[in-house]
């Protein structure tokens, strides 16, 4: 990326068009990835309630997967799932 010169900087260090939180993809911090098993899921939505990053994707009251753009791999969903429908797998590097 080409860095700006001092003359190109806006006064007061204002950053315009700044991304709001959905635009910051924070999922790359993850070292463990949740694996979702659709056949074991009863769609109780406990994982959805507990996920601290709203990374459980839900459509029409049913879990449809995990949003890996934001999931940080904390494993809470796997821990709270009463059916063992989510398991944590080491990220492959």
């Amino acid at each position, binding site marked *: 990326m080409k860095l*700006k010169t*001092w003359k190109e*900087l806006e*006064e*007061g*260090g*204002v950053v*315009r068009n*700044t991304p709001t939180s959905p635009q910051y993809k924070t999922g790359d911090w993850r070292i463990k990835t949740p694996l979702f098993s659709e056949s074991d899921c009863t769609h109780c939505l406990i994982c959805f309630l507990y996920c601290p990053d709203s990374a459980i994707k839900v459509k029409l009251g049913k879990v449809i997967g995990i949003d890996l753009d934001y999931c940080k791999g904390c494993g809470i969903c796997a821990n709270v799932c009463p059916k063992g429908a989510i398991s944590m797998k080491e990220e492959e590097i």
Partner: protein
Amino acid sequence: MKVETRKFVAKTGNEAAAFAMKQINPDVVAAYPITPSSEIVMIFSKYVADGEVDTEFIPVESEHSAISVCIGASASGARVITATSSQGLALMHEILYIASSMRLPIVMIVGNRALSGPLNIHCDHSDTMGSRDCGWIQMYCENANEVYHTIINAVRISEEANLPCMVMMDGFIVTHGMEKVFVLEDEEVKSFIGKRKPLYSLLDVEKPITLGSLTLFDYYLEYKRNQLEGVIKAKKIINDVFEEYRARFGINVPSFVEEYNIEDAEIVVVVMSSAAGTFKEVVDELRNKGEKVGVLRLKVMRPFPYEILREKLTNVKVVGVMDRAETFSTMGGPLSIELRAALYPLSKRPLVQSFVFGLGGREFGIEDAMKVFDILKDIGMKNKITEEYIYIGLRE
């Protein structure tokens, strides 16, 4: 002079400042009381309580919070004023840099008072001299009348330059001294200051912005150079705003410096704030005896008007610089160091003697000012400076 036909009132410096604030009718005032400037906000809070202004008045729990509130309000696009002194200003110190680097106009009125320790409540300039490198504009006023007019100008200057601006007056000497103040009509003030046009507003949800973001080695240097440009450009703004004010209202309020009998002067004293009045009195006396002496009162310390000082002092034989603050550099006060640095590139430059005076409110009278001129005359005759700097009024 048009000024003679103007309405005048008797006001102390603090009263004059509060009255200017009332006419300015700022959107937000946040402050914490401290001697000797407490009265400014005390009087202003009465205007708020009586419904004479539309200001959101925010009494806070410390000066650190006061300046932080001012920053938040100014970033939202509001017109903001605060007041403080001494320890209060010192407590604001870290936040002062943030206000200037975010290019936020704020007007701060300061009643100059010595810093602890030892504890003291009287006048010297150690408080604001300690803040002179914070990126704020600094204007030191001689008397209550100048305080009043300078605050009104400071609103325009601060908002046009997008820089915070301090307006100083000497603690007790001016803050509590009753003087003749020529005042403008409310409408005149309103039309002169107009409406603020902010660079940006935090409250503009249509255009979200990030402010005060982390800036490391890849951008900090460029950022500071960019900020400096704003201070350089402020010089023209200061000049133009005061010029417009003088032309419109016929009030002779100086912009950068006030010259007093310096055209043909061989000896000139450079001094700030209220002590200039004492020197002018002595200059009158010496001029009557035919001595070529003058006073150059420096009003604006930041940005430092070195161009003007070079031009005005190049042909002078001996210059005495009066500092009402000690820097412990062991080579003089802040003004004398900067003045000598400003004159150094000149091929023809005067002998410059540094003086320190009036610390902690020590009285500075006619006989003290006379003694300064005696020392300078002696230097002129010997064509040599023998002492690095001299404390005036010191018990030896």
